[in-house]
């Protein structure tokens, strides 16, 4: 018979009290302790003693203060272990700005975008050192004036990331807008009328496109 099996009922209850106090006791053992506490006059005093041990042990542990710089040292150790953290893909500042606009009610967002785009055009935007921009904004007004374009209205629920990826993929540029009706002027890098029509069809087929209207076509006609 083991030492545990030789315990008297009082010994057994005293052994279980710490687990009763920390809330981990369950089942038959929990019932046994509760019954003991309810029926034995000595039990409540025993519970008080266990509570004093609980407090004393907590105080002894809490007196140990971890180093204040533990987290920063761990972060360095983690970096040494796993290598430098990969910087999250950084969207261009224009995408970030437009994403913020997309987060507000559609009517407000699209109207505010007009002011942003006007600013972009005036500044002849070039992102320093930028790689993999989501899309480009035409730089100078005289350059914009030479390009074929279409008028496009995006759906209010359109996602900026989808639009940006599409424009970037097809070398399209936002040349102006939006108007009060939310219409953007999209520069179309088409050499021929056929190319122009294909690109317009492609824009119109996108789920985020609400309406596409022909604007100026390439000089070669078509």
């Amino acid at each position: 018979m083991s030492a545990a099996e030789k315990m008297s009922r009082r010994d057994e209850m005293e052994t279980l009290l710490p687990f009763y106090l920390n809330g981990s006791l369950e089942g038959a053992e929990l019932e046994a302790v509760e019954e003991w506490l309810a029926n034995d006059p000595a039990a409540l005093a025993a519970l008080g003693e266990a509570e004093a041990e609980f407090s004393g042990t907590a105080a002894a542990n809490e007196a140990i203060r971890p180093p204040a710089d533990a987290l920063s040292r761990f972060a360095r150790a983690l970096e040494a272990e796993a290598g430098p953290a990969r910087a999250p893909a950084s969207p261009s500042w224009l995408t970030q700005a437009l994403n913020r606009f997309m987060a507000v009610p559609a009517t407000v967002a699209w109207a505010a975008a007009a002011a942003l785009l006007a600013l972009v055009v005036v500044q002849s935007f070039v992102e320093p050192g930028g790689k993999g921009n989501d899309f480009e904004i035409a730089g100078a007004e005289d350059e914009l004036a030479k390009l074929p374009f279409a008028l496009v209205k995006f759906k209010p629920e359109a996602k900026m990331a989808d639009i940006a990826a599409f424009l970037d993929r097809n070398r399209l540029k936002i040349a102006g807008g939006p108007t009060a009706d939310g219409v953007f002027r999209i520069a179309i890098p088409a050499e021929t009328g056929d190319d122009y029509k294909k690109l317009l069809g492609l824009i119109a087929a996108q789920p985020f496109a609400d309406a596409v209207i022909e604007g100026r076509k390439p000089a070669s006609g078509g």
Partner: protein
Amino acid sequence: MTAAMETDRALVDRVAKGDRAAVRLLFMRHHARVYRFVVRQTGSEMMADDIANEVFLELWRQAPSFEGRSEVSTWLLGIARFKALSSLRKKKEDWIDDDDAAQVPDSADTPEVVTMKEDKGAALRRFVDALPEEHRTVIDLAYYHGQSVTEIGEVLGIPVATVKTRMFYARKKLGEALKAAGYDRGWP
């Protein structure tokens, strides 16, 4: 299971996918208790500092294999216990004995004098600190870390019956020490 425990597991899942922010969150949540546990195991803050750091690096490494059979806190304490024992085995210096000696009351004071100098709470704290390591550890794990009998068995790698036996003797020794100091609590 509490919401906090579910969150711990969710964080471990994120760590398993290489999320460093998640491991830092777990560090902030559990480091102090792991550190204190190791200090109590080894008696050395310097050793505990290194081991606690290692515990969370181990969490980073082992997160993909964490099956959630135990709570994250129990898992971390188990790793800490293993690393503490390994470090103690490697350590040949006798600083542990020195630290233990420092916890023994000044022999110039009789038990009555010591008792006069401190209240019961302080005496109890001193007696807990002076318990043999295997007894003090189950007291710490139950009272401070909130571990169940089964969880303590997992952390220490011992059977449930042994956990109860150690708890029995730990509390018995505390009672005897209190009685010797003039605080008779009626048991043992």
